[in-house]
């Protein structure tokens, strides 16, 4: 399996505070790779550094062997690496389907072509047809024409995934896809995601509700205080004393 994403020695400091400290991760193609760790351990900061929201202080980020360190988010998006946000950020003034369409490109985005329906309508129709397929894959096809502000929390999470899919991305980074979602919907979301993985996509998932998410993972990285403390297949990481310590405090012996 080839490497989709490689982060080499990524370090990010804020005013002298080290949020991410020389972290190395590798996301292999067609895997569900999980990044776990307690609140404030630097998971989201790491994802932000990889997807261009933040610029790493040092280190390199490679996507399919292209150095994407310091690229802008829309440039990283173009090479096929997209992300979702922990708190869903839908475009509330748009319908569900337009939220998905917004991530697809269309000649009608050029100012001189935009007023001329003929120049872009056929592409838009194709896109829309594709968008409907994507919505069906995440279980939102019935809500395509609702304003996205009318969706519930779990649906918004799936909309984020759909936005990622619509770009034709190869790697999708999901920041807490099941945070704030009830356990039943969380299972549903993750089964959708794992079905998409079967179809050939790669996922990098940040999540701390490992009780629900771990069974879906192929490989887990655990972080604490900005550094990696463990990595490997789920069995290995979740039984790693260091990980248990982070999650349980010091009283492992008590159990």
């Amino acid at each position: 399996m080839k490497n989709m994403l490689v982060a080499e020695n990524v370090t990010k400091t804020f005013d002298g505070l080290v949020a991410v400290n020389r972290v190395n991760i590798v996301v292999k193609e067609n895997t569900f790779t999980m990044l776990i760790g307690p609140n404030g351990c630097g998971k989201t900061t790491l994802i932000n550094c990889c997807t261009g929201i933040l610029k790493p202080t040092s280190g390199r980020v490679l996507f399919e062997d292209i150095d994407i360190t310091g690229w802008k988010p829309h440039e990283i998006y173009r090479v096929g690496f997209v992300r979702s946000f922990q708190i869903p950020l839908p475009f509330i003034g748009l319908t569900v389907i337009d939220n998905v369409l917004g991530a697809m490109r269309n000649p009608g985005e050029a100012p001189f072509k935009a007023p001329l329906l003929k120049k872009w309508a056929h592409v838009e129709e194709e896109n829309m047809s594709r968008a409907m397929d994507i919505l069906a894959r995440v279980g939102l096809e019935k809500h395509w024409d609702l304003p996205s502000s009318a969706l519930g929390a779990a649906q918004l999470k799936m909309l984020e995934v759909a936005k990622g899919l619509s770009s034709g991305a190869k790697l999708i980074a999901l920041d807490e896809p099941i945070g704030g979602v009830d356990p039943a919907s969380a299972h549903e979301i993750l089964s959708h995601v794992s079905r998409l993985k079967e179809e050939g996509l790669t996922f990098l998932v940040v999540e701390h509700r490992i009780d629900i998410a771990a069974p879906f993972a192929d490989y887990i990285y655990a972080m604490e205080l900005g550094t990696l403390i463990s990595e490997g297949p789920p069995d290995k990481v979740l039984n790693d004393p260091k990980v248990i310590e982070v999650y349980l405090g010091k009283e492992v012996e008590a159990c």
Partner: protein
Amino acid sequence: MLTVRKLNAGYGKLQVLYDLSIEVPAKGLTVVVGPNGAGKTTLLCSIMNIAKVFSGEILFEGNSLIGELTHNLAQKGIAYVPQMGNVFAGLSVMDNLHMAGYMLSKAEADAKAEQMTEIFPVLKKFIHRSAGTLSGGERRMLAIAMGLMKNPKLMLLDELSTDLAPIIAERVMMEVARMRDELGITILMVEQMAKRALEIGDTAYLLVSGQVKYSGQANSLLHEPELCSMYLGIKQLPGQGETKLSVAEEGSEGN
């Protein structure tokens, strides 16, 4: 003293707590434990009307707290020590203590502040420094002192042991137990350092993914081997055999 019934709460659209019911008996120490992201902090925030309550009941001494403004809650005798942002970084240590005792008279506040500096000598040393210059541990001490300043009937403590050296954490825990024993303060404590908390606590609740998975005597909860697996969310730890799901069900019925 405090009763929470069928609470559904969260932030904006995100729901974090699902039909959560807990009971905090007067003059007791109630401990809420659970993995990251279980909604422990959100529980305290919904009591303080900081998070959004979607439905359910919160009763304090028989009166509903839903919709009460936060500062009125403080005047009713509920003190809240948040995990993050628990001191005023721009104010001196002395001012922090006085602000915490905002509802006390000048003389009372002075006396109480004096008492606090005796309990926490480190505060005396930095009394005129601004709280922003304190180290993590010192800040935490200040936060606890600020909670105690209020002479509360009910104290809500969020993750006291964060950032504290083990020895100091131990002392803080003893201090909490002493507050219950000597001052007769009712305490609702959310804690990551589960073992110590459960040792000193009276009643305990285990929160997982926004739902109560276990409730009962703090001590007996400590002796449940499932605790470990519950925390980590692994259904089967190697060598442990089948999980006793019945325990969890019993627990939720116990509410």
